[in-house]
């Protein structure tokens, strides 16, 4: 057990050090949701009325509604960013170094995902802090309850990123990930509008939103921020995490994975 924890600590530390060196990455990861919060939400507030839906017990502003969705956005972009850095690592060879370790490969990949998640969670807290400073506050205990939700959401999206990275053969293909993964995942979810709003325009869209695991990660975060537990969201997020983890492991399996296809 001890060797596994040593490797985990080293992989997380390395990611944290790398992150600390890339200040611009931290700033841009924060600017993105803040722009949405300040610009997009301000415009939408007038156009979009929200009814009282759980976990809210009173009318809320649109800014308040999208804060959990924007936390999800940070996790989503970071998950994809680590996917990009994995493709880069693979081209540069440091992925090979990781994979020749005698420790179980599933653990190494899981450690890589956890390392990315740690960075994402820090960014979410920085974002929640700025939002609070702007007056968009959550119940104090919510900031504690949200931690496991953020971690699980981060693992789910990080695993998706790793799985995708095993199917992306080159860095150039990353633009495709933006178009076909990040945007649909984000827009067809409850991050920006509640399900009943979606249902008003299209039942099909509503159904897609309802099965999108990202919606469930966002709802898990939303409920946790208000100190409430959403069992369905937890189940979906955990299930999707397992599926994505299995896909990631399959993608990096030496018998059939990408390393082989690329030569």
């Amino acid at each position, binding site marked *: 057990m001890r060797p596994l924890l*040593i490797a985990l600590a080293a992989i997380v530390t390395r990611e944290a050090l790398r992150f600390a060196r890339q200040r611009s990455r931290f700033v841009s990861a924060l600017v993105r949701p803040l722009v949405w919060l300040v610009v997009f939400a301000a415009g939408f507030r007038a156009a979009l009325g929200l009814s009282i839906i759980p976990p809210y017990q009173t009318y809320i502003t649109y800014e308040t509604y999208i804060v959990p969705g924007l936390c999800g956005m940070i996790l989503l972009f970071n998950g994809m960013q680590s996917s990009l850095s994995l493709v880069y690592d693979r081209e540069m060879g440091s992925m090979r170094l990781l994979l020749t370790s005698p420790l179980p490969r599933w653990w190494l990949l899981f450690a890589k995902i956890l390392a990315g998640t740690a960075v994402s969670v820090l960014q979410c807290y920085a974002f929640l802090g700025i939002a609070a400073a702007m007056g968009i506050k959550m119940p104090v205990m919510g900031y504690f309850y949200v931690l496991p939700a953020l971690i699980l959401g981060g693992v789910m999206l990080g695993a998706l990123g790793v799985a995708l990275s095993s199917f992306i053969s080159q860095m150039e293909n990353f633009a495709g990930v933006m178009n076909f993964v990040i945007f649909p995942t984000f827009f067809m979810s409850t991050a920006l509008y509640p399900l009943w709003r979606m249902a008003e325009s299209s039942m099909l869209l509503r159904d897609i939103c309802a099965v999108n695991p990202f919606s469930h990660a966002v709802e898990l975060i939303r409920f946790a921020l208000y100190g409430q537990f959403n069992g369905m969201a937890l189940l979906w997020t955990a299930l999707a995490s397992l599926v994505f983890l299995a896909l990631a492991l399959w993608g990096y399996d030496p018998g059939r994975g990408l390393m082989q296809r690329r030569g």
Partner: protein
Amino acid sequence: MTGLRIDGLGFSYGAKRALENVSFEVEQGAFCALLGPNGAGKSTLFALLTRLFTTREGRISVAGHDIASNPRQALARIGVVFQQQTLDLDLSVRRNLRYFAALHGLAGRAAEMRIEAALERMAMRERADELARDLNGGHRRRTEIARALVHQPAVLLLDEPTVGLDAEARRAITTHVHDLCAGDGLTALWATHLTDEVWPEDRLVILHRGCVLADGITREIAGQEGLTERFLSLTGAPA
């Protein structure tokens, strides 16, 4: 005792055969050069030896551990120096080694002692706190070899480790690895396409289009005509 044993190894990329019935053994403590022109299958063989790929054709055994049935024990006995440079340039030499030690489950005093010993073996101790970025190509390579020695492997695999180095650095690295074999009983498999890196008493395996063309002691394979001429005549490459 056998350091590395390869038996009937075959591998294809789709319809293209990359390795065909490759077999050879390297005794413990031997320096074995794997000589082959570009595209001979050296990198594919290394990928199989490090389990980046797997194959159903043939067997690989590292210090007595079969890589298919005991991958973790086999990998634990291998040190690898890849053709591509794989240092984290923003970390110091020592931190690079520490990260690698941790990937092998080593930390604390035990790891530090091994790191010091590995740096000492590659004459890199005085540079241990420099950033990898500030080192020249030769010293970066030495760092990578030191890193590959941290977990005290039985077999060291080096995939064209002198690519991009000047003549002096090339000679220094080649000599260093020969010394490791002679002094510490390490088995080394050194892939190259440069005949001047192979010494007359070395074991030599010549690989061409995925097949073993020659296997023996370099002096005997080279004969009267010298290794370069012999290699070119065997592989049919223009002189």
